[in-house]
Structure formats: structure tokens, C-alpha cells
């Protein structure tokens, strides 16, 4: 007997200022281990200090999914990395991040443009451009 199992799709692109990682599908108990491995590989290749996570198409996430971000953050603590989450209109995921108090660890914005504005306010671009 085999039912439908959840899936997750991860896409990573490197822009001038940040690494953009899009997560689509379900980041849950059954997918988190594979997702973590993929993300570790992406992190190994990454060259920027900012990770922009597009979670707007994440349809479901549980506590094990949340833990993936904590794990990755803990790997990067000595490297001054910033995680910015783009939630768009995904209220369910945004609510979960809020309940879990992740706003104390990460930056949350509605759109990628908001993320760029946030980085400008932090004078991040000047730092990158020297």
C-alpha cells in the first residue's frame, strides 16, 4: 500500500547581492531530511552573506521543517549571515513563523522588493560594493 507522499522542490539562484532559495511544496517530517541535504550543498557553494528564502509557495510546514532553518542558521553563526524570508500572501506559513517566534531570529518581508529595501536600509549594498 503506498499513498501520496509529500514533495518539496528547491531552486537556488545567486544574484549580485544575495543567494535566493525558493521552496515549493511541503517542508515536513517526510521531506525535511532530503531538503536539508540539498540546502547544505547549496550553502557550500554560496558566496553571499544574505540568503533570501522565498517561502511564498510553501504549502505546509511542521516543526521538523522549522528546525531545518535553525540547523542552517547554526552552521552559519560565525559567518555573519542574514536570512530574509519572503512570505508574500502565504498567511499560514507567516503565522507559523510568528507563533514559533522566528521573527526573533530572521527577517520577514512580503516581497523580494521589500527585502531589497530592507538591505538598503542596513546599508548592505554599500558594504558589498566597497
Amino acid at each position, binding site marked *: *500500500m*503506498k*499513498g*501520496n*507522499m*509529500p514533495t518539496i522542490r528547491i531552486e537556488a539562484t545567486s544574484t549580485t547581492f544575495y543567494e535566493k532559495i525558493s521552496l515549493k511544496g511541503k517542508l*515536513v*517530517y*517526510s521531506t525535511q531530511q532530503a531538503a536539508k541535504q540539498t540546502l547544505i550543498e547549496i550553502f557550500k557553494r554560496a558566496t553571499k552573506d544574505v540568503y533570501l528564502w522565498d517561502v511564498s509557495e510553501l504549502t*505546509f510546514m*511542521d*516543526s*521538523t521543517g*522549522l*528546525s531545518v532553518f*535553525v*540547523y542552517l*542558521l*547554526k552552521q552559519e553563526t560565525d559567518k555573519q549571515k542574514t536570512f530574509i524570508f519572503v512570505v508574500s500572501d502565504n498567511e*499560514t506559513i507567516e*503565522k*507559523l513563523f510568528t*507563533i*514559533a*517566534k*522566528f521573527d*526573533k*531570529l530572521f527577517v520577514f518581508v512580503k516581497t523580494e522588493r521589500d527585502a531589497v529595501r530592507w538591505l538598503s536600509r542596513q546599508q548592505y549594498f554599500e558594504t558589498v560594493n566597497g
Partner: protein
Amino acid sequence: MYEMVLRCPANAEAIEFCDLFIDSLSSFFAVLDRPALVLSVHEAIINSIEAVRKLCREHDDNTLTLFVRVGKEEVTIFVSDSANSLPVQAIENRRTKQLEDVLLEESGRGLLLMRELMDDIWVEPLENGTYALGMKMRR
């Protein structure tokens, strides 16, 4: 009042099935916070699967039981498993802990999320001497 009992293998497939089951049920009975109910039951099922995985042998009857009661004003859920390892102490500890306290922890967030999302969670002694995790949400 409706009552349903679901007994299934304690494996990852059961999580997906129970998600769909609770989601459909919440839709049918117009539960106000459907995503919260689905996630809470999902977290309880994960705990059961992990307990069975750690404590039961492969050839044991590794099952979990989901009981749902839908009343006029609230939904009550009980989740139990063949490992019967319900960490009563862990639940008691979680009563005093907050999600801020586990911010950088990679586990132990499930019960705290359930407590935030549901109106009540507790340990329910069953007739056969085992325990179930009970939770309640107003419709």
C-alpha cells in the same frame, strides 16, 4: 455528535493520510482554524511515529490510533500509539517552557506549537492502562 477512530501503521505515510483526513473533516464541519487543527494533529502523529520508531521492534504491531470527536462547540482529538511512551514529564515541562526558550533547538518544538494552536492539550489515561495525548479546539 460525530466520533471517528482511525487505526493505522505508525509510519510517515500515516502523517499524510491523517493530514488529509483532518483537513477534510475540518472543512466539512466548518472548523474555524483549519490549518491550526491540521498542524496540531500532524505534530501529535509525528511524536507517535518517532516513539514507535525508537521503542518498538520492527515485527511488533506498530500502530497509532487517532480518535476524533466533533461536538457542537468543539473538536476533541486523542492520539495514542503502540509504544505508549507518551512523555508525561515532557508535557509537564512544556507547560512551563515557551517557544522563545527553544528558539535555537532543533527538536522539542512540536508540543509547544500544539499548545499555542489548540485551546487545551493534556495526557488522557485510557481504559487499558495506556495513555493518549488529548487536545481540544473550539469550532
